[in-house]
């Protein structure tokens, strides 16, 4: 009888350990996903000054656009939380779109090898940001689901696992989807 009881206890402990470990794995996957986003965003921030300089060489008068891009970049770099980062990113995306729209008006610029390379780099980095965001959000969804589900929610409560925020495209999404206004002042 005691033997059966001990086996039961042993199985229970193993079960709890398994649940705890799976929570740790999922949490680390979220952290890793976030770090990945961070790497890609930083890469993008490094590309932007180069891009602005190249465009400036051909289109000196579009000061408004350059200022918007630079400002959005600074704001995105200094963002603290996941939510802030999300909205700052959207502003930056919108600003970059208008920059490329302006570039459309300068045929010599569009033929510039350096500009073409930067454009490809930026497009590549942008899709990497999107993919790392997708990976992060998928990981967060799995982690949050596990935290909310019974019986892992008990373990999560005991060891202080907190739900994560999604990296969402909030209000900025709408702005980024709006047609870009180009002024010819």
């Amino acid at each position, binding site marked *: 009888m005691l033997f059966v009881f001990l086996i039961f206890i042993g199985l229970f402990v193993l079960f709890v350990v398994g649940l705890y470990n799976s929570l740790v794995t999922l949490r680390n996957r979220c952290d890793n996903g976030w770090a990945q986003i961070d790497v890609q965003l930083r890469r993008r921030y490094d590309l932007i000054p180069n891009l602005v300089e190249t465009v400036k060489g051909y289109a000196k008068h579009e000061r408004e656009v350059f200022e918007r891009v630079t400002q959005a970049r600074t704001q995105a770099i200094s963002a603290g939380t996941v939510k802030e980062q999300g909205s700052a990113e959207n502003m930056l995306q919108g600003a970059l779109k208008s920059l490329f729209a302006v570039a459309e008006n300068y045929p010599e610029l569009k033929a510039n090898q350096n500009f073409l390379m930067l454009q*490809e*780099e930026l497009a*590549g980095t942008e899709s*990497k940001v999107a*993919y790392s965001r*997708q*990976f992060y959000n998928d990981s967060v969804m799995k982690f949050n689901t596990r935290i909310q589900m019974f019986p892992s929610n008990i373990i999560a409560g005991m060891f202080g696992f907190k739900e994560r925020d999604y990296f969402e495209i909030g209000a900025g999404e709408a702005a980024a989807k709006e047609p870009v206004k180009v002024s010819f002042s």
Partner: protein
Amino acid sequence: MFEQISENKFKSGVLVFCFLVLIFLLVWLLQYLMGLGVAGFVLALVFASFTAFLSYWASDKIVLAMSRARPVTKEEYPYLHNVVEGLAIAAGIPAPRCYVIDDTAPNAFATGRNPKNSVICVTTGLLQKLNRAELEGVIGHEMSHIRNYDILLQTLTVVMVGIVALLSDWILRGVFWGGGRRRSSSRDRGGGQLALVLVAVGLVLAVLSPIVSQLIRLAVSRRREFLADASSAQLTRHPAGLASALRKLASDPEPLEAANKATAHLYIINPLKNVKGVVNKLFSTHPPIEERIAALERM
């Protein structure tokens, strides 16, 4: 997905073991025909273990060399590298190395033994003929082959099928040219009955082994293509991209010169372009492209 990974690893293990046994038997038969005795037994054992080891560690290099692929730097093909890196992030695996085949026929394959040691190989024609969304679909398909360990099983098959075909070829030749002499000398030793049976078994084995390895290869690949298409759509969130890429690839009439029967099942679509008629459809390594496109469009 995780069930599929462990299933692939298990199947790879079983495959390696079966081939080890098969190759051992074939080599043993070969040496029996040549009459090497104990030395031949050791030879068979060493050869079998060596090929099994080789096909695990070097099969990706063999396949890449067979396909005349060359590694490319990020400076040379930034576009390809960016797409591959992006999808590696989406799949949550380290970025595979990029190889290119200089051929205008659009096609692609992946090889390697695990996600850490993997290669994605595309033709220059693929890079020219597809747009970004389509290329992402194709790379996503290869990325899911890598993530699910399909590449291990598929690449192992290439090398092992090749070795078995080679050995059975030798044996058939050995029986025809040296069989008579062997038989008379073994009858002198009093083992004539046994020897005859062995030679008969060996003959059957030698005839069957290429067929068996063909069948293994067929079983390996067809269902996987559908699965990889589905996972690609899940990675890119854009099934239309892959569907349109498949349509372009299928309508391209050019065969890929670097591909052959041993490597055909690795590619995203059949590179040999001879899938016509009922028999070919039965023995083809790829499901019909129309079915794949229809499955993608239902998503």
